[in-house]
């Protein structure tokens, strides 16, 4: 009756990640005819921009789409970037999960080493063809080759590799796809490039659409974007697993040294402080660090964070308080939990204070935020003005913040109002990459919706001629899916976006109320002047006095009352300019 386990498992096989993503290509954004095309453009343009920025080059990107048949297109993306060394190129385009970025804590647009090879995979499964690559690092030799993926092995197959002398630098990819469709809607390649240009005013993009029409998005900023530096993980965001992983690769002599070397914000002083609490652990060789040790270190970091962020907790430790109020009891219990992990046993009150006291004086610097590369307030302003020609622009660049304890992020918001803008538009960006899809499930959309815009002078915000640009920069953007189109609802991030929106809202409010105050004052006098003759006439009828005499009396009064208004108006107008 029951089948033997041996039979069941006789078909047991191992599979490559390429096979996995071939079956699950929607996870990479290849679902829907329009979206698949946009995804491919996105992957290639993103790689170009990242490469240019890393090399300090002002990017010139050329994108061309040719229609070859029904749902059949040829895409060309060319950049003036640093080029790809010919021995690396096959892996970049022919092997999934290979790349420069995945393992580093650095803010780049792509992160997972899937993008470029994903395009190859998509090309291959829809047309059976390779992608064609032409690249040169500017060393006088241009390389061309066709690249495919051996799906079973997740390894590149290179054909027609040639090289010839040439004085060109850059990368060009030609990718032919089927089952895709081009249109000019809000999910289109056009819209993607338009938004990319808005968030990257240092980029020049030329797009030749399938009808042969050329769209140029010119740069309005002439300085290249500085590349984000690689950030070390921050102690407050580290997990035991991270520490154990680190320890296996560390060349430091002791765990203490490893912490100062590998983590951000850990000075020698901090390690000395921690020594008082975890002397044995910190003196160990890294390779001997146990999971339990790692948990004790993490608990120590968390306790330091708790004490530094919480005044009540700090005070009870400083005073070694015994009689606790209800609120203090709550904080004490939290400290006690940390102490329990650090000590590996249920601690007495005395022991809690003993463990915590040395931690009081430990200062760990906040996460490095200079690794983030925001667009920049001035760049956003210029870009919105140049691209949208609005009446008014307000921009807010928030200070970098940290989520999950150690991942830095930063929110920028630009709002453009009126002028040539005719309707509402929300442009979401993550690390300057436009997010076109999945708007509904995105924390950015949620945050914009959650604001009471009436308070900022917009009774019907979502029908107003307003463009809202929001860019989230982070070394690790919390996407909801691998499709990277929506930001997950991380409370720290959500609240920060809201705070940015409220800040920009106040600027909007200030502007709109100034404008309307001026108009109101100008209006008032006019009203009185309009009413005046009729009042004079009626009063004349009632009293029998001469109408002109009465009218002149009234006119004099109005002039008297409003004589200071003109000066006032001039002043306010000056301010609002």
């Amino acid at each position, binding site marked *: 009756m029951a089948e033997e386990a041996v039979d069941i498992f006789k078909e047991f096989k191992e599979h490559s990640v390429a096979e996995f993503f071939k079956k699950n290509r929607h996870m990479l954004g290849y679902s829907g005819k329009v979206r698949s095309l946009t995804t491919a453009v996105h992957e290639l343009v993103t790689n170009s921009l990242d490469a240019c920025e890393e090399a300090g080059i002002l990017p010139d990107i050329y994108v061309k789409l040719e229609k070859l048949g029904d749902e059949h297109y040829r895409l060309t993306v060319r950049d003036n970037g640093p080029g790809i060394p010919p021995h690396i190129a096959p892996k970049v385009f022919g092997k999934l999960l290979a790349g420069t970025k995945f393992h580093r804590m650095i803010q780049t647009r792509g992160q997972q080493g899937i993008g470029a090879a994903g395009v190859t995979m998509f090309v291959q499964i829809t047309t059976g063809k390779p992608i064609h690559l032409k690249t040169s690092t500017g060393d006088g030799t241009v390389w061309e080759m066709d690249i495919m993926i051996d799906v079973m092995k997740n390894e590149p197959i290179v054909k027609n590799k040639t090289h010839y002398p040439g004085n060109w630098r850059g990368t060009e990819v030609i990718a032919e796809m089927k089952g895709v469709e081009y249109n000019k809607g809000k999910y289109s390649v056009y819209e993607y490039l338009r938004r990319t240009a808005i968030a990257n005013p240092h980029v020049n993009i030329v797009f030749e659409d399938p009808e042969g029409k050329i769209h140029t998005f010119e740069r309005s900023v002439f300085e290249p974007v500085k590349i984000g530096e690689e950030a070390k993980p921050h102690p407050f965001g580290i997990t035991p697993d991270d520490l154990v992983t680190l320890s296996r690769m560390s060349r430091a002599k002791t765990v203490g040294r490893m912490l100062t070397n590998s983590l951000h914000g850990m000075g020698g002083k901090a390690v000395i402080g921690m020594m008082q609490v975890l002397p044995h652990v910190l003196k160990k060789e890294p390779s001997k660090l146990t999971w339990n040790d790692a948990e004790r270190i993490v608990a120590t970091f968390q306790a330091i964070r708790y004490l530094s962020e919480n005044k009540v907790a700090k005070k009870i430790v400083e005073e070694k308080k015994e009689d606790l109020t209800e609120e203090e009891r709550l904080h004490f219990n939290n400290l006690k939990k940390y102490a329990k992990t650090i000590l590996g046993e249920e601690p007495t009150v005395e022991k809690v204070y003993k463990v915590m006291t040395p931690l009081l004086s430990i200062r760990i610097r906040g996460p490095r935020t200079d690794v983030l590369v925001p667009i920049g307030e001035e760049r956003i302003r210029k870009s919105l003005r140049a691209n949208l020609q609005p009446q008014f622009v307000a921009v807010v660049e928030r200070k970098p913040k940290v989520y999950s304890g150690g991942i830095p992020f930063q929110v920028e918001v630009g709002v453009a109002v009126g002028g040539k803008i005719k309707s509402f538009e929300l442009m979401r960006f993550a690390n300057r990459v436009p997010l076109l899809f999945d708007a509904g499930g995105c924390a950015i959309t949620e945050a914009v919706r959650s604001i009471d815009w009436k308070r900022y002078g917009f009774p019907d915000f979502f029908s107003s001629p307003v463009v809202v640009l929001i860019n989230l920069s982070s070394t690790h953007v919390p996407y909801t899916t691998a499709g990277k189109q929506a930001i997950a609802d991380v409370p720290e991030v959500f609240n920060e976006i809201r705070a940015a929106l409220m800040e920009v809202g106040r600027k909007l409010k200030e502007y709109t109320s100034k404008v309307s105050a001026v108009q109101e004052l100008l209006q008032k006098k006019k009203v009185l002047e309009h009413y005046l003759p009729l009042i004079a006439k*009626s009063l004349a009828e009632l*009293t029998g006095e001469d109408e002109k005499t009465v009218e002149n009396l009234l006119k004099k009064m109005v002039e008297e009352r409003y004589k200071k208004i003109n000066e006032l108006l001039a002043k306010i107008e000056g301010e609002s300019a």
Partner: protein
Amino acid sequence: MMEDIRKVDEQIIKKLSEWAKEILQKAEKEGELYLEVPVRSLSNVIWDEEKGILRMGQRVARRSFLNVAHAKRFLQTIVVAAAIKSLVEEGVTTSLRDVFYRVKFTIPGTKENVVDEQKESDKAIEDLETMLGFVREEFHVFSKGGKGHVAGPIEIEEHVYSPDGKHRIVEVDGTNVGMGGWAVPPIVEPERVKIKKVEAEFVLVIEKSAVWTRFHEDRFWDDHNALIITAEGMPDRATRRLVHRLHYEFNLPVYILTDADPWGWYIYSVYKQGSINLSYLSPQLATPPSKFLGMTISDYFDFSFPKTVQIKLNEKDVKRLRELRRYPWFKKKEWHQEFDLMEKKGFKMELEAASSKHWRFISKEYVPAKLEAGKVLP
């Protein structure tokens, strides 16, 4: 008799002129063009316990032309005042709606009208009433055609005035009126309606005209030597003014008969104390010594009405009942017992419910029994 009307008219024209001159004089002196209007909002309505009426307090608001927020109303008041002057000069009587159209013209040189809604000209007239100390009816302005009907032992001389001078005097004998009774005209000021003789011993005011017809057909006024009056629901100013005059000029006790519901009881309070919006007119309109004859929820039990006549209180009723409780003139033990009873039992009852017993129960048994027993509420 026409001199009476002329006299009032002349007073009004003179007063309007003086009032306007004063505005101009102050303007020259103070550099401010303004009106001082007694405040008619709830905050300036006073419950005068002694007189038993709602009346206007002392607060006066300054309405300045130079304040843009006030300018339009200032304009409206002055323009309406000029219109009133022409009305009185021409000797024409007309309605609030006509006055509205008279002043609903475009302000020269603008696209704006003097008024857009009738309530704007109505408010201007109210302002003028309070500032000048005349009632609207003396300005020759009424709201709608009269609502009231009267029958019973009363003799009246109606002075029917005509702008062309063909005045008539019409004699009315309240015991010799048709099924519709004497139609109370929209203005019952003494210069227009002279009450010559009243033989009745009391006045019975009936909320609903259909019920009034029952009393009339049953010659209640004959059997009980009474005047019966109705104004179909919420009374117009003329009917209230007439009841007021009957009481104060002829010492007639006034009894009010309404539905046993918060709205009916509120109608009673309007006859008796005046309404909040017209509190400034209470001295002319209200009849504080009026007594409430019925119906009450106690009557439901006392007279053993069948359960089917009950109507469940709705939300609005409950809300209005709570308002009634707060009125100072209802702060009487007897009334609060009735409020409590209604709220507890949760129903109301109409006058026509009496027909559930027999067709003439209300006129032949219920009201006579209540009168005889003196079962009235204050």
